[in-house]
Every structure is written in structure tokens, then in C-alpha cells.
């Protein structure tokens, strides 16, 4: 299957996005902000469709609007993030807006399925470079900010007292989340961003009680699930996203199977 160029590109794209999605997802789970990640993907829907209406490349609109929304969430800080209702409102407004843009530009409608459910087999070289850029910038920022991010996520009051700027940490993190979401949309689509970003991370968090193991395990799971999904799609001819969603759900559920956990030391 690697004889085909588009398959190689698909594996590369899924690997790149899976790596950063796993790490970002791990912190989303740690901070209890997974719903914010979900909402950002819907903002991306409005961004991509809106870009088409205004004659811009959809990918630019996707990244641009999620980034603006991510920064907005970061600036509003504690007043917004974690507030399910406010985030839910943003989410539905974005979908509505996206629908309106589609109404004006019906010829784009054929590509909507790709936007909603992803199309990793259709990733071209230029997109691949953009995804690589997202991953490098995102992982670079997270590596730089991991320490205060973990501290601020686990113990915000104490972190603040020790001099961590909670708004800055939150802003940086949501900016990285936003571009990561945009990358995920290219692979699994707006509606299934959770499968790549939250599923593997939540499973990783359940599989280890060591933070640093978890941060590394989450991207490994995400990449493994994405690659396995592409391979299975190749042999079954089902859509890739179906397989990734199924694997993501299955792995998460498997973490609930008791494996004779060693008793905790007294």
C-alpha cells in the first residue's frame, strides 16, 4: 500500500498530526478543557467555509479562525474556559455561521463531507508542509511551556503564588490547541476531532499514574490509532475516519478492563 504516493502522504500527515494531537489532548484532559477543544473544531468549520466564500484557501480560514477563537478563549480566561454553556453557544453559533456560508457558496458543499469527517487520503504536499509547521510550532511551544502548564493545571492557586502567569499559560496553550485542532480537522474532520485529540490522551491518562509517561504515551497511541486506521481503511475500503474513531473508542474502553492491577503500596 506504500506504493501509492497519496498513501505515503496520508501516513506522514496522520503521524505528524497524531503526535501533536496526543500531547495537546493530554493537557486538555489534565485541565478539564476537552470541550473547549471540541468547540474550537466547530469554529474551524465556520473558518473554512467562510474562507471559501471570501475567495481564500479553506485551510487558511480553518487555521485563522480557530487561532483567533483560541486566543479569545485564552484572553477571557477563567471567565470562559470550563464554562460549558458559553462554549456550547460559541460552538452552535459557529456551525450556524458555517451553514450560512455554505448557503452562499453551494458549490463548496461537495467538500463539506471532507471538512466534517476528514479526508486524510486527499492531503497534498502543500498541506503536509502546513501540518508539519503546525506540529513544530505547537510542540516547540509546549516543550517550552510544559512545566508551568502542568503546575498551573494541577494547582492554579499555588502556581499563581509562585509567580506563574495563569493568563499567559492559558493563552499559549489555547493557541497551540487551536492550530492543533485545525490540523486534526484535515485528518479526521470537524466532528471527529475528539477521536484523535481526546480519545488517545484520555486512555493514556488512565494507563499510567506518571505524568511524564502519560505525556509521551498519548501521542504514541494517537499515531498508532491513526496509522492503523489508515491501513484498515486501505484493506476494507471503509472511510479512514470510521476506523480511527472505532480504534480510539476501543482503546479507551479497553483501559477499563481490569488487568489485575497491582495493589497500591499502603
Amino acid at each position, binding site marked *: 500500500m506504500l506504493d501509492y504516493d497519496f498513501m505515503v502522504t496520508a501516513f506522514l500527515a496522520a503521524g505528524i498530526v497524531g503526535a501533536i494531537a496526543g500531547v495537546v489532548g493530554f493537557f486538555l484532559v*489534565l*485541565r*478539564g478543557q476537552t470541550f473547549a477543544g471540541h468547540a474550537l473544531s466547530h469554529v474551524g468549520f465556520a473558518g473554512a467555509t467562510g474562507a471559501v466564500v471570501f475567495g481564500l484557501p479553506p485551510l487558511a480560514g480553518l487555521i485563522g479562525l480557530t487561532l483567533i477563537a483560541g486566543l479569545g478563549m485564552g484572553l477571557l480566561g477563567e471567565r470562559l474556559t470550563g464554562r460549558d454553556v458559553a462554549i456550547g453557544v460559541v460552538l452552535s453559533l459557529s456551525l450556524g455561521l458555517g451553514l450560512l456560508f455554505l448557503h452562499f457558496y453551494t458549490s463548496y458543499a461537495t467538500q463539506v463531507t471532507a471538512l466534517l469527517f476528514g479526508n486524510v487520503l486527499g492531503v497534498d504536499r502543500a498541506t503536509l508542509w502546513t501540518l508539519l509547521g503546525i506540529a513544530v510550532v505547537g510542540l516547540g511551544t509546549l*516543550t*517550552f*511551556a*510544559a*512545566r*508551568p502548564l*502542568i*503546575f498551573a*493545571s*494541577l*494547582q492554579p*492557586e*499555588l*502556581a*499563581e*503564588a*509562585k*509567580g*506563574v*502567569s495563569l493568563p499567559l499559560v492559558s493563552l499559549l496553550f489555547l493557541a497551540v490547541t487551536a492550530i492543533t485542532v485545525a490540523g486534526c480537522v484535515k485528518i479526521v474532520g470537524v466532528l471527529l476531532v475528539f477521536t484523535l485529540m481526546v480519545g488517545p490522551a484520555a486512555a493514556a*491518562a*488512565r494507563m499510567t*499514574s*506518571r*505524568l*511524564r509517561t*502519560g505525556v509521551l504515551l498519548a501521542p504514541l497511541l494517537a499515531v498508532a490509532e491513526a496509522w492503523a486506521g489508515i491501513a484498515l481503511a486501505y484493506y476494507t475500503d471503509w472511510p479512514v475516519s470510521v476506523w480511527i474513531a472505532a480504534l480510539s473508542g476501543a482503546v479507551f474502553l479497553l483501559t477499563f478492563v481490569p488487568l489485575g492491577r497491582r495493589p*497500591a*503500596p*499502603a
Partner: protein
Amino acid sequence: MTAVRFERVGIAFGSRSILSGVSLDIADGEFVGVLGPNGAGKTTLMRAILGLVRPTEGAIAVLGGPARRGNPGVGYLPQMHRSAPGAGFSGWDLVASSAGGGRWGWPGTSAAERRDIERALDLTDARDLARRPVGELSGGQRQRLLLAQALVGRPRLLLLDEPLISLDPSRQRSTVELVRRLRHEQPVTVLFSAHEINPLLGAIDRVLYLGNGAAALGTVDEVITSPVLSRLYAADIDVVRLGGRIFVMAGGHDIERAEHRHDA
């Protein structure tokens, strides 16, 4: 030397005044119990010392300098919350996340930091707890872990916000005893807020009682009296001493106990 000095400090949130015209000096090495009804401003006072709340008037000096965020000489145990993010991760990860303060970069601890963390965990008898996921710990075990965390970096001033919450009476005594003993092993000034004066009796040097925007600082005998508390509660308060314990009563009810029932 004074560890904490308030000079005519006023703190307000919007138009709501929490403290006004409070002046006080806490000497180096003192163990001070901070008391007062819910909403009196115990947490706010600590956050002001940490530089997280800016006084609307007056000045606060901490360890010889102005109150500022990120002062490495100050250790802090925040008031406990019901929700604990990262409950699946080990106590060690929780404690280690604060070592080295808020510096940037990838998480990790130096050998010296690890030794310091182990020393702190030993002091609160929490070395074994640190291996377990935080979510599996009881409230009291988690408090011991967080107390150890506050001791990392050998702070000279320790702000402990309600460390006795969710502890049974014997654990309460042993926690107070632990803090008292700690002061022999490293010279440290302690502000320790609590619901009730009784667990602190015999251990603390002085009481800082907050209420009604004012503060009274003095020995237990000076502060826990009917006239002083009546002023702070703006109500008629009786102080009853019985078998080495003190009961603060209003209209026949023990208000220190009743006040805080909801936190239990």
C-alpha cells in the same frame, strides 16, 4: 525582625470592604493561628501576603521586602477544593510540579530538588503517599502531601490555609503538632488558619482573629474574650472555657463549630 508587617492595610473587592485599617506585626519564628467566621478574610489575607491581592490602601511587608508574587521564601498551602485535577497522577508528580517555582521548560527535577522533596515528604510522613495516585488518597492524606509541598524549598514563611479541614480530631492534633515540631527543625514563621481555636491551643504563640473588617492579634487569653470577639462578630459573644477547651458562643450556640459545618 518581623516576618509580616501590615501598615494600615485596607482590602476591598469593588465596593465591598474586607479589611480596613489593619496594622500588625508578626515576628520571625512566630506560630500564629488565623481565625474568623466564613468570609472574614482569612484566605484573602494570605493571598495579600502572597502578592495575589493588592491592598487598596496601606502596605504589606513580607520577610523584609514588599509583598510580591513568586517570593521563594514563602510556602503556601491553599484552601482545599473538592475537585482535584490530575487525580490519576501520583502524589510525587503533584509535589514535584511546583519544585523550582514557575520556571519555563520541560518538567523535571534536579537531584538537589528531589532530595528536598524527599526531605519534605519525610517531615509530613507522606513518602509512601507520594507513590499513589492523588485521586486514591483520603482528604487528610492529600493534606499531608500538600503540606509537604509547601515545605519544599525551605520557606521562611509558611501560609497554611485551613490545613485541618476534613481531618479527624486525632489527625488535627497531629497536624498541629507536626507544624509545631517543624519549627524546631527549620526556623519558620507560620500563619495557620482554622475553623476552631481548640486544636491550636497550646501550640500557637498568638491568634489573629478576623471579623467585620477588623483584626485582633494577641495571645489566646487577650483575643479570645467576650469584648474582643463581640466587636469582631458585631454580636454579643460569650467565651466559655471548659476542661481546657474554649467555646465561642452566641445566644447559646457554639458558633465556631456551627459556622463551618458546611465545609466538612
